[in-house]
């Protein structure tokens, strides 16, 4: 790798993020390592959202006026940008939602209405975020379907051999996380999808932690659904995407009823709108969709493989430095991982580590990260998690590690 330069200049990238200049806790430099919770937004995205509200704000798809036409075009152009970003076949496959959680709830709820019966089986994995467990538990309760789980090993990788045993003729759907938010593991979703498709089973991929870190191409993956949130890829909160193959979206009834998702309503019968509008009831997050599109355009300037490589360097460097400190255990040591370093320290609770780092200006997350089955697997209640993004640097990793040493010394004295 010696001569190959990263295609982006981290210092230049940092200048595009106003918040990185914020001082915290009494004039300390902010080191933002909570990117798996939410990334920051570049100036371009902030300006785009602001400009929309200042110059173009209007409702979409229904106004008899100039502004509404313009807002509609911007909103539909945003859909096109998302379609291109994921390499979907058509805009009909792109549904705007509030975020990954709503996206999975949409799929689970709509899929269960008609496509799930008592005794049917849904497979998830042990490393799912609660938002890819609870929606399936809810539909399982309503339909009498069963939830089955692909286990993980002690490195935090899926035990894929078990999947073959778990698939039966009653398996109706598999839902799996692309990248684990608490472990950083990149799952072999393509393999899972191939295996599932041999048995005619559709696969949902939770891409919340993947899109900003590794290449995603829904046609290459051949997944049936792909879900992600805008705010984890430098876009606004409150906007997310469900990609779904038309053949499935056509079969599924609407998620919510309301305006925009209908063709014709009488008290006798309602005809639903075509895709993707069938799944977009009510006024959508128009500014959010437009802001998300701007974030995706911004992000696409960079070679995703270079971004991945840069973040991997940070993961490796942080892991190496952490291991030099005594009494640290890394949680999640998959061979194939990205952007996340979860750890625990002997004698010091993750919460105290989080507060201690915060005093030094370093923002991390502590807790179970909405993955309690993962915590249970490792026999722990919580971890401290540093998660990286495109704008983080090795220098910040050094600040983080030296702050951590100070914190551990304070509590272990």
């Amino acid at each position: 790798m010696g001569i190959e330069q990263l295609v982006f200049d981290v210092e230049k990238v940092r200048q595009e993020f106003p918040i990185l200049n914020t001082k915290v806790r009494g004039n300390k430099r902010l080191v933002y390592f909570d990117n798996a919770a939410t990334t920051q937004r570049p100036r371009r995205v902030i300006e785009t959202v602001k400009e929309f509200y200042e110059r173009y704000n209007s409702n979409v798809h229904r106004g008899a006026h100039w502004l509404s036409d313009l807002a509609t075009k911007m909103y539909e152009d945003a859909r096109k940008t998302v379609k291109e970003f994921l390499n979907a076949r058509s805009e009909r496959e792109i549904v705007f939602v509030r975020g990954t959680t709503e996206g999975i709830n949409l799929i689970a709820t709509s899929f269960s209405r008609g496509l799930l019966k008592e005794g049917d089986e849904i497979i998830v994995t042990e490393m799912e975020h609660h938002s890819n467990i609870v929606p399936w538990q809810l539909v399982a309760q309503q339909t009498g379907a069963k939830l089955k789980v692909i286990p993980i090993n002690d490195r935090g990788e899926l035990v894929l051999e078990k999947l073959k045993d778990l698939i039966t003729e009653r398996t109706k759907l598999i839902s799996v996380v692309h990248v684990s938010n608490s472990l950083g593991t990149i799952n072999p979703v393509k393999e899972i999808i191939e295996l599932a498709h041999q048995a005619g089973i559709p696969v949902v991929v939770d891409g919340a932690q993947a899109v900003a870190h590794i290449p995603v191409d829904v046609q290459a993956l051949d997944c049936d659904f792909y879900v992600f949130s805008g705010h984890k890829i430098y876009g606004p909160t409150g906007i997310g995407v469900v990609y779904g193959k038309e053949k499935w979206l056509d079969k599924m009834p609407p998620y919510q009823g309301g305006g925009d998702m209908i063709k014709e309503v009488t008290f006798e019968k309602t005809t639903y709108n075509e895709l993707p509008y069938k799944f977009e009831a009510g006024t959508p997050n128009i500014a959010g969709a437009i802001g998300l599109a701007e974030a995706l355009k911004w992000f696409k300037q960079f070679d995703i493989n270079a971004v991945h490589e840069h973040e991997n360097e940070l993961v490796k460097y942080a892991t190496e430095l952490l291991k030099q400190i005594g009494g640290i255990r890394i949680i999640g040591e998959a061979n194939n991982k990205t952007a996340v370093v979860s750890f625990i320290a002997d004698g010091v609770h993750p919460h105290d580590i989080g507060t201690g780092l915060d005093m030094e200006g370093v923002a991390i997350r502590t807790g179970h990260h909405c993955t309690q089955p993962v915590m249970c697997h490792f026999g722990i209640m919580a971890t401290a998690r540093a998660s990286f993004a495109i704008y983080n640097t090795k220098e910040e990793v050094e600040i983080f590690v030296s702050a951590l040493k100070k914190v551990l010394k304070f509590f272990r004295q």
Partner: protein
Amino acid sequence: MNSLEELYQELILEHNRYPRNFGVIENPTHKARGLNPLCGDEINLYLVVEDGTIKDIKFQGQGCAISKASASMMTEIVKGKTVEEALDLYKKFHDMVTADFTQEVDTDKLGPVAVFSGVRAFPARVKCASLAWHALEAALTGKEEYSE
């Protein structure tokens, strides 16, 4: 408040390292389990109440320095108090840690546990400090489980 020393005062660190009344009472008259599902903190509280007075109290569980020290100091201060006095302390403690940080708080009667008034500056840590107290209130009012 921008330093660890201000929040984690020596008294808190000391109770975290050497928690008092740590353990189980075999035949408690009152008990409760306090849970903070967000961070996974858990405390089991056991009491012996005779003639309206807390004769003995012990706790077990796992949690951060603040929750452990708070539990330890809570058991020290309520031991020997009447149930009424203990519930009054619970209320005073609760008012103290949930008050606005810019306000003066009434730490009268709270004695050493007033050291936790600093958590008001850290909203995410208030529940750590109050978990043991909530468990105490639950145990004394006949609820066996308290969950944040």
